[in-house]
């Protein structure tokens, strides 16, 4: 009851502040208030959701959806735009955490499962979604009118974007549920590798689609761009890893602040240099975990300071969901969500069976592949920017799919973690569910 009263009091204060401005958009001054408001309300909503056995993360997302511009409008669009800096930092932090989780030696026994699940579930689902989009053209006006070749290329591109998963959600839920075991490790390994696979597939599919539309930049240029993004990000990641290693080894003090600043640099400068911040931070984390002796220090430093960033990140993600587009594209979106889920669940089961993975992985790994967030949103936006001729409907479809997966999938994966018995088995068993 107190939690609800607190949430209502904070909302009342936000509303009062809103009435102070005369209709013009609130400037960056409102951002600090929005940051504090999302942090507190998201946190309290997370506690409420935990009480009804839903992930806290869904509470953070729900907060964003309700207080964001489409519903109550307590947090303005300019404030959300400014808070994207936080989102960038959070993405880098999450990838850094994911990297520190990837202890290659420990993953070796699971490597076979990870590779087979990636191949069958991720690549298989891409193919399945591509075929579905192609044959569902009558439901999609922006593809229906295209010649066969162009329609096939767009179908492939949409199939790739829809396949994207979310390491951020997987890492956040692993932390929240304090989960550990073969399922958690396998899912994390798959979503991280799948991230790379999806980026590569998107670059290839995008090149093919551009060629089909006659606007291609040439194979060599595309390969060069792709190499810069992938190899450049990894090399920069190693450089950042070295810097973090030096700091954690030699300085140690205020390491949380230093890591946050580094993530800020990764997010902002990495984007300007056309690096993939996710890949860059992932490479840094993996380097530190597997080459140096400060992996645990880095992990602990992130865990001790990352919660506020995560809460705001997911609340902002919720607030940027395009709810108004949902009714327009609901039917095709639902079809693709069902096909995607089926592809991942069956594909993961098949891949795990081929790899002779433990039973728990066979039964539940597919559920960990369902969440979508940052990468899918980024690819959806990139798609709409690259192919403006397809109109806003294509973008709305992709964003709608991401929105639905963003809302529903974390609860499903949480359920899978609980059923698998891996929830609460992590390093901090006594504080299970604290975060």
């Amino acid at each position: 009851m107190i939690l609800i009263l607190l949430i209502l009091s904070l909302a009342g204060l936000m509303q009062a502040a809103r009435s102070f401005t005369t209709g013009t958009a609130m400037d960056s001054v409102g951002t600090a208030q929005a940051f504090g408001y999302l942090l507190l309300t998201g946190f309290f909503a997370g506690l409420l959701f935990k009480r009804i056995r839903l992930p806290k993360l869904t509470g953070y997302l729900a907060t964003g959806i309700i207080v964001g511009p489409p519903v109550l409008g307590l947090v303005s669009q300019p404030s959300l735009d400014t808070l994207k800096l936080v989102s960038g930092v959070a993405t880098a932090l999450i990838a850094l955490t994911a990297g520190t989780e990837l202890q290659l030696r420990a993953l070796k026994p699971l490597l076979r499962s990870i590779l087979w699940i990636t191949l069958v579930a991720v690549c298989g689902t891409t193919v399945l979604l591509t075929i579905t989009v192609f044959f569902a053209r009558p439901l999609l006006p922006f593809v229906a009118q295209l010649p066969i070749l162009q329609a096939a290329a767009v179908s492939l591109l949409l199939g790739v974007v829809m396949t994207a998963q979310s390491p951020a959600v997987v890492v956040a839920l692993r932390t929240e549920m304090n989960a550990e075991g073969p399922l958690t490790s396998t899912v994390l390994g798959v979503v991280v590798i799948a991230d790379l696979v999806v980026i590569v597939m998107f670059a290839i599919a995008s090149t093919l689609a551009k060629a089909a539309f006659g606007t291609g930049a040439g194979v060599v240029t595309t390969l060069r761009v792709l190499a810069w993004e992938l190899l450049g990000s990894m090399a920069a990641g190693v450089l950042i890893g070295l810097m973090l290693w030096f700091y954690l080894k030699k300085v140690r003090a205020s390491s949380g602040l230093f890591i946050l600043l580094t993530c800020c640099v990764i997010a902002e400068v990495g984007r300007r240099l056309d690096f993939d911040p996710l890949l860059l931070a992932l490479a840094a984390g993996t380097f530190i975990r597997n080459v140096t002796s400060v992996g645990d220090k880095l992990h602990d430093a992130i865990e001790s300071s990352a919660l506020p960033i995560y809460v705001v990140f997911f609340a902002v993600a919720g607030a940027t969901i395009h709810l108004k587009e949902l009714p327009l594209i609901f039917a095709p979106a639902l079809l693709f969500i069902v096909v995607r889920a089926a592809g991942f669940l069956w594909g993961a089961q098949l891949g795990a069976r081929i790899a002779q993975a433990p039973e728990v992985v066979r039964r539940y790994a597919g559920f960990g592949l369902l969440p979508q967030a940052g990468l899918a949103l980024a690819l959806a936006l990139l798609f709409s920017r690259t192919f403006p001729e397809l109109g806003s409907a294509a973008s709305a479809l992709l964003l709608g799919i991401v929105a639905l997966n963003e809302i529903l999938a974390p609860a499903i994966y949480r359920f899978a973690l609980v059923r698998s018995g891996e929830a609460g088995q992590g390093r901090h068993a006594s504080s299970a569910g604290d975060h």
Partner: protein
Amino acid sequence: VSQRGAVVIRTILGLLGLLVLAYIGGHPKVRQIEKMLGVSQVITAGFPFVVLGILTRLPRVGILTDKVLTDLEPLLLLSLGWIGFFVGFRCDAQMLSELPRAIGRMIFGRVAVVFTIIAAASALLFVGTALIGESVLSMTFLRDAIILGTAGALTSHYTPRLLLARGCDETSIAMVKRVARLQELAGIIGLLFVCAYFRPQGGGVSWQLPGTAWLLLTLGLGTVFGIIIYIILLRDPASQVEAMLLLLGSVAFAAGMAATLRLSPVVVCFFVGLLLANFPGDYKERVTETLTRLERPIYLLFLLVVGAHWRLQDWRGWALLAVFVPARFMGNYLGTRLAKVAAHIPLSEAAQNALVVSPLGSLSIAIVINAQLLYPEGGTIQALVTAIVGGAIATEIVVQLATRTAADAGIPDAREDVAPAYNPTLDDTYGDLPALQAPEQEKSPS
């Protein structure tokens, strides 16, 4: 490609610079030096961050561009709120109630004299040289004079540390500490009046209220937030990181709300901190721990942004700085002597000297940066920033010189005897709080 190459080089240089600064700021030896010399982080770990802000703001470097600075404004507001909250949370009613009655007169007299001399010297400078295009009788000039006088009249919390370094008696140290705290209170009240009665102009504001209403609104807002945050903090967080989240969110929300209403985040958060410090509850230790943990990082980031906002090319600021620093010392001297005579406060010679040469603290910088945010155009705010930020560095240097001169002249230097009495855990942490707690730590065992 060449542009990308330039960005890569700048980024690598920036990262290396950050690493070096972090190394300097965080290294235990640097903190030992800070402690040994009795200097504040403004000129050790802090000054390089100010310089970094200045350098990264340069168009040729192009890292802290206008857009990035706008994006970082929430961080600045959070820092201002944090400083205000920190100051308020230190104001324990019990400590204030134990003060001698005459100390109120002494503080008032001292602040009034310092304030008047600084304002008068600045007015003389501006009238004599026609540095600003408007009359010294205008409201804008009056506003800026109040801001400069208020910020300049404050005494850094490091002053008691200087006394410790000179082996002063505990009574004087405790007295100087309380004087410094009460002066902070006076500074907050000054800022409160400026924000209430000199309302920022401009569109987008729908509430038109008289100044007194804004003053009451500021107090009311601080109280409402104090109560809400009190209820929030009464919940027992599951972990330290949750406690940090609650405090961070509360201060950001209060500071943001104040800024949205064009009020001072420093003042509103001060009242929040004041209420929380004096309400009953077992959260205080937790809050102190979080404040201590985050103060240095937030303060250093604040200085980085302050450096970026500092317009060095505004030469009026340098002229003002040249007048401000001597005027402040003169005001401190006269104010302290007059206050001692008028209020009959038992202050030792060393304590009086420490008050005269006391450096400017973080609250002074916060007041002038807050004013810069509220009144970005017109007046002499830019010059005030140079005077206060430059003054903070200059007064710190003067203090060090004065302290060493006194030591060379034979005044007993008990630094080595006193320093080990510091609680090492607290003293190795950040900012003003540990320095102020040091004498109490000494007293408690006896």
